[in-house]
């Protein structure tokens, strides 16, 4: 967060978009620009590369990977909701072996920056995943998806318990090279997001990704049963944006020095700007990618222009700006 501010609100002297310095950092990870994909909304980048060059955006956050191959939940896995969607994919994926053999090297070859999202059912599993990734190399950052049920604690979700969350973060941090930041990805479905955030940071998280989906349900009024085979699912999209933004705001307010990767319902550059102003040093574009497969690239373009229009010379000057008194 900059304290000597070159921006004057109200009388912006527009900067040419091409000259805005869009670079940013997430801990020790340096990004040419602050727009990334969101985990689970971009696969491992290959498919989206048909629509835009994935090396051009800040980074590709890959689908949360688990130790073993996993077939996920039964279908139906999706329901459209007002300005949102519910998903219940159940972390289908090829497992870490195939991921490290095929997906990560592909991203590195493209010149893309890979943020590897990992998911596990136990602290040990998370630790093993981090070790495998360290040994393989190529990851610019690790995002720890702690919104998974802890199989050792009656399926209680890690992200809902400060202690469980901290244990996972610690295990991953320990197994990861110092120069690779470890971000904990928080769930908004908690009473006190700041407490969870603090617990993760105390356990060694270099930053926080916020937020994951909200737990929701939709009932089919014809079959009169839940639409999703998994009954409940994760709500994403613009519908949740105010909630995700509030989480970013609260955590940045409480811990302004902790970098945040913000996400939740970002469709446009102005949405991304809201997250930056609330305190996010970078953003992930998720569900919108389903609507517009080149959304991350477009959001980057729009954000750059929005900053230029407002007279910003550096993206980083916008980060957290909304917390300053008017």
């Amino acid at each position, binding site marked *: 967060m900059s304290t000597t501010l070159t921006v004057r609100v109200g009388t912006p002297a527009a900067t040419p978009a091409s000259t805005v310095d869009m670079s940013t950092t997430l801990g020790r990870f340096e990004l040419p620009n602050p727009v990334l994909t969101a985990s689970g909304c971009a*696969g491992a980048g290959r498919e989206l590369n048909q629509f835009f060059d994935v090396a051009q955006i800040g980074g590709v956050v890959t689908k949360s990977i688990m130790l073993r191959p996993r*077939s*996920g939940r039964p279908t139906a*896995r999706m329901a459209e909701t007002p300005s949102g969607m519910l998903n219940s994919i159940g972390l289908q994926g090829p497992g870490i072996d195939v991921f490290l053999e095929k997906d990560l090297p592909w991203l590195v070859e493209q010149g893309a920056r890979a943020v590897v999202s990992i998911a596990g059912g136990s602290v040990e599993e998370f630790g093993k995943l981090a070790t495998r990734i360290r040994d393989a190399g190529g990851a610019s950052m690790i995002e720890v998806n702690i919104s998974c049920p802890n199989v050792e604690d009656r*399926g209680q979700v890690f992200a809902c318990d400060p202690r469980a969350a901290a244990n996972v973060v610690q295990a991953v941090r320990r197994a990861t090279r110092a120069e690779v930041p470890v971000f904990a990805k928080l769930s908004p479905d908690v009473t006190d997001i700041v407490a969870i955030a603090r617990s993760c940071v105390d356990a060694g998280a270099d930053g926080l990704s916020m937020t994951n989906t909200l737990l929701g349900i939709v009932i089919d009024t014809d079959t009169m049963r839940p639409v999703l085979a998994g009954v*409940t699912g994760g709500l994403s999209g613009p519908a949740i944006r105010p909630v995700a933004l509030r989480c970013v705001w609260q955590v940045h307010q409480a811990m302004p020095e902790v970098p945040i990767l913000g996400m939740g319902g970002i469709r446009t550059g102005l949405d991304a700007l809201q997250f930056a102003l609330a305190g996010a040093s970078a953003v992930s574009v998720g569900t919108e990618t389903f609507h517009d497969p080149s959304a991350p690239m477009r959001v980057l373009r729009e954000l750059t222009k929005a900053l230029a229009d407002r007279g910003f010379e550096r993206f980083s000057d916008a980060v957290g700006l909304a917390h300053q008194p008017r």
Partner: protein
Amino acid sequence: MTPVQVTGEVLSLRRIGAYNAMTVVAPGVAESAKPGQFVTVAVGGPDTSMLMRRPFSIYQVRERGVYGGTVEFVFSVEGRGTRWLAHMQPHEPIDIVGPLGKPFALPREPATCVLVGGGYGSAPLFPLADALRERGCRIDFVIGAATEERLFGALDAKRISATLSVTTDDGSVGLRGRVSDPLPEVLATTKADVVYACGPMPMLRAVSRIAEEAGIPCQIAVEEMMACGVGVCMTCVLPVVGDDGETRMVRSCVDGPVFHGERVRFDDIGTIPADAVGAPEPPPEPKPVGKRAAKAQQVAEAVR
């Protein structure tokens, strides 16, 4: 064959029986489309509450119309998105992505091909028929629907096929019954080499069974809910047996929508078969079988 996203323009929208056929100027989509592929369109306009693109099979393609390549698709008004589409006007912009998915595989040699279409599922069989005829194949059509007005393309089918069989559920035209009912006989009399089918899942199951029993290869185009349509979200999976004999939950948007009928585990759609790659460890309780039991268990487990 890589898909593109373009802001197309609605060229025309016409009624065909119970359906709407929309032609869109969509340069880049039209040129590379192959039979069996689909497009997705954004619905609802800029301030809509509907985020999901709607997938439609490609019906006709003209590579160089007066206005550039056009794509036509046939749709039925089912819900909010298709209702919105049905109210579009010529010249309005429409956001379209395609061509998507794996197309039908064509026989190398001239062959006798039976094309089975249910409802609007007949639509993608017409470009397929054109491609097959170009290769000197014989076409026999079997077309069915619930009612006469939901039959699609019977007249056109008659023109281009050696034989045409028609069924309706209510018997309003053709045979009363399912589109699969006349199929065994059609396969026998035509000495069919291959079956292509598109339509609702129960129909595809029946057709696949009949083809399998007759020992004839069968390609089907399935329709699953899709969030992204481009392979990144894993919404659209179904259990399919691979070349190695293993069942995997594969994406119908990029690994399909066309599959070999005998490879699709129809009875297990809506479940994760216990022998699928990456299936959950069997729980301590007796393993549930089939969709009903799975659902019951999920309901019980839903909220931990």
